């Protein structure tokens, strides 16, 4: 039988006060049920509850201007999430510094409500001197962690802490076909430590299939050589099933995607695609581009996992780092002794 949680007889024993000696079971006993009890109904209860409270998802898209970030987000969520005017007189103004713009929408599908926040980063990598252009982004991500931390350590805290932490950062790599550029490496190196980074090859319709495969291999080699762990990270595979699934995904990272928000007629069906003189690139056709894989990863299968890793790993490491800094003392337990020791070690 799988024991999903680690043995914690120590914790059981520690919890009892001295006045009530307890004969705690040293080993958790696995028992047979003689008949139907109804424990599995808890799954339905959980489902109902989560449908009632709704979900939150915060996505960040990073990449140089013109790589199709806004179109991609619109294609992912099949709606006009990012609104970019597309009139002929419109000139995309590139801001002088990296700015972050967040839009929040509520979308509903089959009774499931989701509050989606998409943060765009216009100006990234567009300047002549792009040094430290990742700093505003890192600052923004850390600010969200800080907000959550402050809410969490309040005395009377809200029943549901609003979660604005960035759950996933999609990084758009320009389809040069050669290697990752220094800017890409620098950015991904820094950010994969604090957030789940999903790299994608943007505008992949400029690469043939062979070029695409070559490019991907080179990118994977580059990432490994620099020790950059992108999502799904190898360290967080829970069990062998997860590992097999994630290995398959890892083979295909980065996904080569094409975004489109116009529909065209193909073989009597209406599909999303880009119409060119030499054919129609169907966005949802796995033979044309890997957009379905990206969508499945981000939304259909790994959304909860993205949120969990953000909460359990990235947020926790931010919290550890923050509480260890000397201007924020750790909250000492009741007898105060532990806190004092930590004070001394921090002095």
């Amino acid at each position: 039988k799988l024991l999903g949680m680690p043995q914690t007889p120590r914790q059981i024993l520690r919890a009892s006060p001295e006045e009530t000696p307890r004969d705690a079971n040293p080993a958790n006993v696995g028992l047979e049920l003689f008949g139907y009890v109804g424990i599995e109904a808890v799954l339905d209860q959980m489902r109902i509850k989560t449908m009632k409270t709704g979900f939150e998802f915060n996505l960040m898209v990073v990449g140089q201007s013109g790589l199709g970030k806004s179109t991609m987000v619109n294609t992912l969520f099949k709606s006009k999430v990012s609104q970019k005017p597309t009139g002929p007189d419109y000139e995309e103004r590139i801001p002088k510094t990296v700015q972050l713009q967040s839009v929040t929408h509520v979308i509903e599908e089959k009774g499931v409500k989701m509050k989606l926040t998409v943060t765009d980063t216009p100006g990234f990598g567009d300047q002549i001197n792009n040094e430290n252009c990742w700093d505003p982004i890192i600052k923004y991500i850390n600010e969200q962690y800080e907000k959550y931390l402050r809410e969490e350590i309040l005395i009377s805290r809200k029943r549901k802490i609003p979660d604005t932490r960035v759950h996933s950062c999609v990084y758009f790599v320009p389809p040069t076909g050669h290697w990752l550029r220094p800017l890409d490496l620098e950015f991904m190196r820094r950010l994969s430590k604090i957030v789940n980074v999903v790299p994608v090859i943007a505008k992949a319709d400029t690469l043939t299939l062979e070029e695409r495969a070559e490019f991907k291999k080179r990118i994977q080699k580059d990432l490994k050589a620099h020790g950059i762990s992108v999502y799904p990270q190898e360290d967080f595979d829970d069990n062998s099933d997860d590992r097999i699934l994630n290995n398959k995904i890892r083979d295909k990272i980065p996904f080569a995607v094409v975004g489109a928000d116009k529909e065209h007629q193909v073989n009597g069906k209406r599909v999303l695609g880009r119409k060119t003189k030499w054919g129609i690139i169907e966005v949802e056709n796995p033979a044309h581009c890997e957009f379905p894989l990206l969508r499945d990863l981000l939304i259909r299968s790994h959304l909860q996992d993205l949120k969990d890793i953000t909460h359990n790993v990235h947020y926790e490491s931010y919290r550890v780092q923050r509480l260890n800094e000397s201007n924020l003392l750790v909250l000492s337990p009741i007898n105060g002794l532990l806190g004092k020791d930590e004070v001394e070690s921090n002095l």
Partner: protein
Amino acid sequence: MASSEVARQLQNDNCRPLSLSGHVGFDSLPDQLVNKSINQGFCFNILCIGETGIGKSTLIDTLFNTSFDDRVSTHFQPNVRLRAQTYELQESNVRLKLTIVNTVGFGDQINKEDSYQPIVDYIDAQFEAYLQEELKIKRSLYNYHDTRIHVCLYFISPTGHSLKTLDLLTMKNLDSKVNIIPVIAKADTISKTELQKFKIKLMSELVNNGVQIYQFPTDDETISKINATMNGHLPFAVVGSMEEMKVGNKMVKARQYPWGIVQVENENHCDFVKLREMLICTNMEDLREQTHARHYELYRRCKLEEMGFRDTGPENKPVSLQETYEAKRHEFFGELQRKEEEMRQMFVQRVKEKEAILKEAERELQAKFEHLKRLHQEERMKLEEKRKLLEDDMIAFNKRKAATELLQAQAFASTPSVSLKKDKDRKNFM
């Protein structure tokens, strides 16, 4: 909360609702969440409070359709103890880590004033353990084995009259710390009409005394109707049994009497099925959530305020935890320094004392040494004198010896042969 309310609430947060033009696929989100939870497993902790022999263990066995622990307790416990056991149950693909906490010796003592205290202490200890884990710097909350009590089944004896004072007292002390579900135990001793009156009496007593028992939630449409009906049947009158008898052509769990068979799962006979429905099938998740969101938060707030942390300062300005921390840190630091000073003073004192003692000892030794030296000197002088005397004697003796020899030598020189002859004659004569 109806779904339109949720949409309105979300709208109030400055976000626009958006319509989708196709299938995106995030309706699989609840399934993703459920799958994750299946992987992690569930945790559920039940506390059973009731007198010895009232049927707690049997009821739990019947509820979960398995036999947990066979140990029967004696009535002679000096005070109330809590005994907790954890079991791993699995039904289809759901793994449940179930902890049953039994009160041993509850209601057996002659003086029952402190009976509820060990229970309150135990519940607080579980909250405390969770709070400490949550406040740690390096914490691992996602695989923390949650031992907080999610539900308390309070067993009321079927007297048919009213609540005992002990019951009231215990429940009043526990209602803000845990979800209480009162059950009438051994309900097969009460007739149907008496049962109705008993239930009404019990509920009115609870309400009059301000005891807040757990109300099944009625805010979700899917379960609100059934929960509302169940709320009207509280407290549940239950009968527990693991023995199976043949009734009709089925084997059912029942208790056999000469006058008939009480079937546990027959809704006409007792409310066991209702209890199982409510406790496990419908509201387990809600019980866990209430424990975490209401009881635990209350405990946490009280505990932190006790320790001196505040959200708002004396002028109602929000005090950041940072400032409180700094203040506490200074306090601790000052305390530390004071203690160090004290110890240093004490050390210096001790050193002085020791030095004085050692000096004293040294002086004594010195005195002794002098004394002995003097004695020694005296001895020596005496011996010197004696030696001198002896030497003088020896010289005198030598002188006399020399003198006598000289005389003898002189005498010998004047009559040397005569004396020889005389000697010889004398010798021959003899």
